[in-house]
């Protein structure tokens, strides 16, 4: 019994030691920054020149003492809620419009929604500003008087653009849900005498509750914690939002660390409550609509151009074509343009944007280096961490998994704020580890932001692998590294490549960390774009945005091409193997059975 107990303890220690690299990485990149941020809310002098560990709730009181902060919290709450409701309605229409449409229309809607998903919110917001402001594209082209769009630069306008921006989160959840509802669930109702509208109300829509709630809660969380809209529209609309207040507390004099920490805590708590409410609703209920015999309802009448398809295309026009089209037009039109005539177009703004003296080209090059490095590291760490989580299930790896799931929901602005507290702390001075304001700190923040997503992607791929594949390799004497390199990597290489390109393109337009953590004098690309817009240089800012988007689309296309080649290669290899095996298999089948 004693021997057994000591063996158990040794194994326990070995498990923790095995998970130590993963835990250390998570601690440095995510836990430590978040903990220091949250500690600031109860230990206000933690980061002072005269550090003190005396607790106080004064930071939280301070948050609400400032009416602007209170207004920002309420604004974010209301706008987040209302835009989540509208996004849910619009995303659901788009999902029905796509899933039950002809393949061509489905592909069109799907592609459009994906572009909206990838387009950073501040890029979309700037597109809307270019379109709607006094003297903007709409005013120039349609000769509209000043003040025509005052209604837009208000909460109403914000709700419109935010609702359109968060459609993808609902769309993805709902289209999968629609596909998963077996045809027989509707058929059963029809045979009992129910008409289609009654069935939709009583059966179809309630069956999609999980997707509806998931989509709505993500849309709310995105709206509540979105920094892009806040950064791009708040200066125009004078509507304070919580994320902008966090940014302003850290970036504008006088710097107000306690407010930033308190607001960050509120942000995390509200988002956690939203997800908790969603999970609480689902607890004890089942909405399982998939069985081995289910036939997708989506295929029923799938060659039609329905009214939902038409409405989806209109929605996408507003969500994508209008804002991005405005950005492209803004970048190509002469300042005095009053129509879309050929002579009004120019490439001057692109030339100006890429001039060495403008800093645009330098910041683009800088960001591409950041993106390449963080994408490479994300791919490697993501692969390793997912591998340990899937195939080395211990208490320690479960802990890492839970932290990772939780941190996906942490808004970028909060994580970036955490990095300021964590890597500018007084206790790091004697250790010469104050890295705030260095490229390393910014690179680490990019890595912290992308790693949880990369791990989730890798987990998805690795979950489909049978553990026996690894057991077989281990039983033949392969060490962990060999198993990872020779068995796991070849099977998940397409996902690894997808992770690389996802991080690469994501970093190109990452705004929160770029704004708060860049080394002085060396702004990254997103910060340069934002500053250009803030300086009212809309044409040059738009040109920079378009250049960035072209690079992102080219990289994304390259990634998809490589990914499909790798997947194709894997399939071909598997098919060749099957063909080679065929004769012996045929023999086995035809041989007499006892």
């Amino acid at each position, binding site marked *: 019994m004693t021997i057994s107990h000591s063996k158990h303890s040794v194994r326990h220690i070995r498990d923790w030691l095995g998970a130590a690299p993963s835990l250390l990485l998570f601690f440095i990149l995510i836990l430590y920054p978040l903990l220091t941020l949250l500690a600031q809310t109860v230990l206000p002098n933690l980061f002072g020149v005269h550090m003190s560990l005396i607790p106080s709730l004064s930071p939280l009181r301070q948050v609400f003492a400032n009416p602007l902060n209170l207004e920002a919290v309420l604004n974010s709450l209301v706008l987040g809620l209302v835009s989540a409701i509208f996004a849910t309605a619009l995303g659901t229409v788009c999902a029905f419009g796509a899933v039950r449409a002809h393949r061509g229309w489905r592909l069109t809607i799907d592609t459009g929604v994906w572009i909206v998903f990838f387009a950073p919110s501040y890029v979309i917001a700037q597109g809307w500003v270019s379109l709607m402001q006094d003297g903007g594209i709409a005013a120039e082209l349609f000769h509209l008087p000043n003040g025509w769009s005052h209604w837009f630069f208000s909460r109403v306008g914000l709700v419109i653009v935010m609702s359109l921006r968060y459609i993808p989160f609902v769309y993805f959840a709902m289209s999968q849900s629609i596909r998963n509802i077996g045809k*027989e669930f509707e058929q059963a*109702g*029809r*045979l*009992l*005498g129910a008409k289609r509208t009654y069935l939709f109300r009583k059966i179809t829509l309630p*069956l999609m509750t999980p997707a509806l709630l998931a989509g709505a809660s993500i849309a709310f969380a995105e709206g509540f914690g979105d920094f892009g809209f806040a950064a791009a529209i708040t200066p125009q609309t004078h509507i304070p939002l919580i994320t902008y207040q966090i940014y302003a507390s850290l970036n504008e004099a006088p710097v107000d660390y306690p407010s930033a920490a308190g607001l960050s805590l509120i942000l995390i708590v509200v988002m956690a409550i939203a997800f908790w409410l969603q999970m609480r609703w689902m607890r004890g209920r089942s909405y399982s609509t998939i069985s081995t015999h289910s036939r997708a309802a989506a295929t029923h009448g799938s060659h039609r151009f329905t009214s939902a398809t038409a409405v989806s295309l209109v929605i996408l026009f507003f969500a994508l074509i209008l804002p991005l089209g405005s950005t492209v037009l803004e970048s190509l039109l002469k300042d005095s343009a009053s129509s879309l005539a050929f002579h009004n177009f120019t490439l001057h703004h692109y030339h100006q944007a890429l001039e060495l003296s403008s800093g645009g080209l330098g910041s683009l090059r800088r960001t591409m280096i950041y993106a390449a490095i963080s994408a490479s590291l994300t791919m490697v760490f993501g692969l390793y961490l997912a591998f340990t989580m899937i195939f080395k299930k211990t208490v320690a790896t479960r802990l890492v998994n839970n932290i990772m799931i939780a941190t996906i929901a942490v808004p970028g602005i909060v994580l970036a704020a955490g990095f300021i507290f964590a890597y500018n702390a007084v206790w790091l001075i004697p250790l010469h580890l104050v890295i705030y304001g260095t490229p390393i700190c910014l690179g680490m923040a990019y890595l912290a932001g992308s790693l949880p997503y990369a791990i989730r992607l890798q987990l998805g791929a690795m979950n489909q692998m049978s553990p026996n594949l690894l057991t077989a390799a281990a039983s033949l004497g392969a060490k962990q590294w060999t198993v990872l390199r020779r068995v796991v990597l070849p099977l998940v290489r397409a996902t690894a490549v997808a992770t690389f390109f996802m991080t690469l393109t994501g970093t190109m337009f990452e705004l929160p960390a770029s704004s708060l953590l860049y080394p002085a004098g060396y702004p990254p690309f997103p910060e340069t774009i934002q500053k250009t817009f803030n300086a009212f240089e809309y044409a040059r800012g738009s040109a920079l945005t378009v250049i960035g988007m072209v690079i992102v689309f080219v990289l994304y296309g390259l990634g998809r091409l490589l990914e499909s080649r790798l997947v194709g290669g894997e399939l071909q290899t598997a098919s060749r193997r099957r063909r080679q095996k065929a004769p012996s298999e045929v023999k086995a089948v035809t041989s007499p059975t006892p």
Partner: protein
Amino acid sequence: MEIELKDVCKEFNGKKVLQGIDLSIPKGQFTALLGPSGCGKTTLLNALAGFLDIDGGEIVVGGQTWSDEGVTLAPEKRNVGMVFQDFALWPHLTVYENVAFGLKVKRRRAPEIAVRVQEVLATVQMEGYVNAYPHQLSGGQKQRIAIARALAPNPSVLLMDEPLSSLDAKLREQMRWDLLSIIKSAKITTVYVTHDQMEALSMADQIVLLHDGIVEQVGTPQELFDNPQTVFAAHFMGAANVIEAEFRESAENFSMIQWSGATLRVHGSPAHMQQPMVLFRPSSLRLSYEATPSSLHSSLPCIIQARAYHGFTWQYRVQVKDATRQLPQTVEVWSADEFAIGTQLFLHVPAESGRLVEGGETAKLTHLGG
């Protein structure tokens, strides 16, 4: 209600799935649509339910045309109950709400609904589960609720699409009895789709055997098992030895054939058959160590090639030495006695145990031996 199908046709992408189905389903009877995957049985059921338009022909139920080439009565107007393969119980509704759904749609009053729901739940012995959700029920219980939901609005026809296929073997056996008892007590015209001939044989009043979109044979379970008309029907209704034999003479109902050196008297005449073949059920053949030829049976030398134990019987594959054609033939025999592989025995073929069946093109593909 009585169901009449007249020359019903259906194509999918140029492939004929139903090819002129003519069928009569008597009122109040349990009819099984039996056949392998892709034979058109589910398509036929969906056409009966109104989920599919037919390309030709007519479906008439109780004197009313439900479908013809131009018109398809909507499913919600047919007063049909259906039990699906995976039950399709709505997971967000309780047992009560699931069963009451059809009654609410028909705008029945709440007290009336409550009484009817209790009544059908009692029929399926699930009275105590009104507040349960489908995910809280076992497979068999879900099955009962699915039947109760279908029966609640008093449908004129009950359609069942392989309702036992989602259950494990033991539960399937039990549910077969329960289902039969529920349907018999409901006295409703039932159309039951299955690919399991045991299910069809043990439950149906009438079996419709479908093959490649056509009706291969219709009859009672006994008729189909004892008197299959084709090689396909013979094989599909249970294990069968179908052999090619030489015909010596034939009368109206009997023929004399020559097989492996023996002359055998079998049922049927080859007069109207394209490619007559002879069917022997494995259970009608016997094995023994001694040859005892008589007027009652013939004895053929054979050797045990393979065997499988099934608990109550042994399944043997024996090779019969064909003295005339010099070609060994393999036949299947069931026997309670145990013989070792390689044992030299005699196969006893009782007189009139064989039956002529139509071979057609499928015979060569499906017969076991030869």
